[in-house]
């Protein structure tokens, strides 16, 4: 059987200590038996490691930050598309999804496919909407509030117990044990990710996650639950293990079918000592630990690519329980020549 030739552009090449999902997504796609893939990396910074991983990324282009607006992004993508003929783009950063969702139609018109949730689905699962989301879909969520100023924050803290979690609009979360600490993290989060900042009740328990893929019609195409085994000081999993947990899978199924979610997602959950599941966050994209799902039998990136291309896909029904991932870091040697070429021409 001949493999289908496709060109796939991927963001999130920041395979650093708090990694983006780009590289594991590419590994999944490259392992597919059905595709002959050319990978175009889309990078924001010169030192995203994926840029220099030539065995995985065929060519990289720098693209403008989401804050520059979707038009700047679209113009740059047009330039790249003219040279590369991109078939599918898989964006992997929360902060860029808004722009890509807004551009979905325009990209489709020039022949670039995506596989993304709708803007309504994307906004609805926003951290700041979590309490409402919990009510609407019958899911336990921690108490929380969105705050726009320090006085707001102090008001919110009056009815909460320490520690509390202070979370940025897009990324980052820190536990605060005092009003003073909460104030510090508030300034840090608002400077980095804008307003509002989310303050949330701290729920004690075990961190468990589910990766899931929805087809936009309410069908759960893939789902693998995982328990974090080792967590870095940035709150990222360093090691994790797939677990057998029907309540988590049921929750994923319920959320995907009720919201008709399209694309990849990650449910961040806490299981309390009383065995109650709390939903902390819904990440609207494939998480960085996706390769564990691939390794335990569900090649989610490949399925997503097929769905984007309009190829029929059967939902996954099983995965290996007890598969582990252990993350490691690795120093590549890079010639200054490459860095200089990227810095001055914007491509490599």
């Amino acid at each position, binding site marked *: 059987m001949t493999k289908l030739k496709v060109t796939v552009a991927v963001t999130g090449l920041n395979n650093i200590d708090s990694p983006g999902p780009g590289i594991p997504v590419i590994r999944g796609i490259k392992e597919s038996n059905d595709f002959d893939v050319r990978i175009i990396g889309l990078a924001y910074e010169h030192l995203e490691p994926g840029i220099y991983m030539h065995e995985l990324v065929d060519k990289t282009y720098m693209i403008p930050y989401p804050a520059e607006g979707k038009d700047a992004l679209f113009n740059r993508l047009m330039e790249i598309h003219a040279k590369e003929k991109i078939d599918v783009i898989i964006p992997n950063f929360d902060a860029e999804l808004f722009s890509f969702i807004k551009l979905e139609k325009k990209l489709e018109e020039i022949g670039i496919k995506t596989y993304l949730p709708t803007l309504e689905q994307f906004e609805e699962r926003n951290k700041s909407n979590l309490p409402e989301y919990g009510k609407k879909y019958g899911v336990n969520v921690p108490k929380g509030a969105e705050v726009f100023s320090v006085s707001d924050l102090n008001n919110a803290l009056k009815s909460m117990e320490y520690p509390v979690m202070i979370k940025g609009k897009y990324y980052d979360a820190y536990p605060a044990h005092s009003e003073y600490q909460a104030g510090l993290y508030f300034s840090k989060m608002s400077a980095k990710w804008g307003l509002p900042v989310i303050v949330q009740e701290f729920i004690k328990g075990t961190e468990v996650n589910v990766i899931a893929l929805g087809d936009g019609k309410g069908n759960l195409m893939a789902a693998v639950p995982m328990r974090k085994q080792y967590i870095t000081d940035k709150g990222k999993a360093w090691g994790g293990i797939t677990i057998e947990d029907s309540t988590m899978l049921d929750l994923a199924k319920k959320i995907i079918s009720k919201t008709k979610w399209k694309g990849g997602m990650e449910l961040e959950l806490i299981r309390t000592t009383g065995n109650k599941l709390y939903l902390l966050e819904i990440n609207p994209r494939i998480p960085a630990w996706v390769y564990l799902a691939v390794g335990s039998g569900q090649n989610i990136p490949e399925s997503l690519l097929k769905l984007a291309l309009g190829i029929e896909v059967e939902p996954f029904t099983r995965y290996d329980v007890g598969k582990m991932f252990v993350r490691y870091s690795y120093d590549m040697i890079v010639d*200054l020549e490459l860095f*200089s070429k990227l*810095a*001055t021409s914007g491509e490599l």
Partner: protein
Amino acid sequence: MLIKGNIALSDNGFVFNPSSGDSFTMNHTGKEVIMLIKEGKTINEIIELMLEKYDVDKMTLERYLLDFMNDLSSNSLLEE
């Protein structure tokens, strides 16, 4: 006034300072000035050459060349 001997300058305007590990990019006039310095031209010669080529008055040019030289020196790209 001399550019440090070990400074690597590439055609595309990329500069690398091996002693500090810093890298820089320049705009086309910046690159032109550095090339002229490397060729051993004096500031006055550079001013003459650029006045001929660009639509700019002498005072403005001197002012911005001075700024640029300060930037080079504060980034340790010039011989003391």
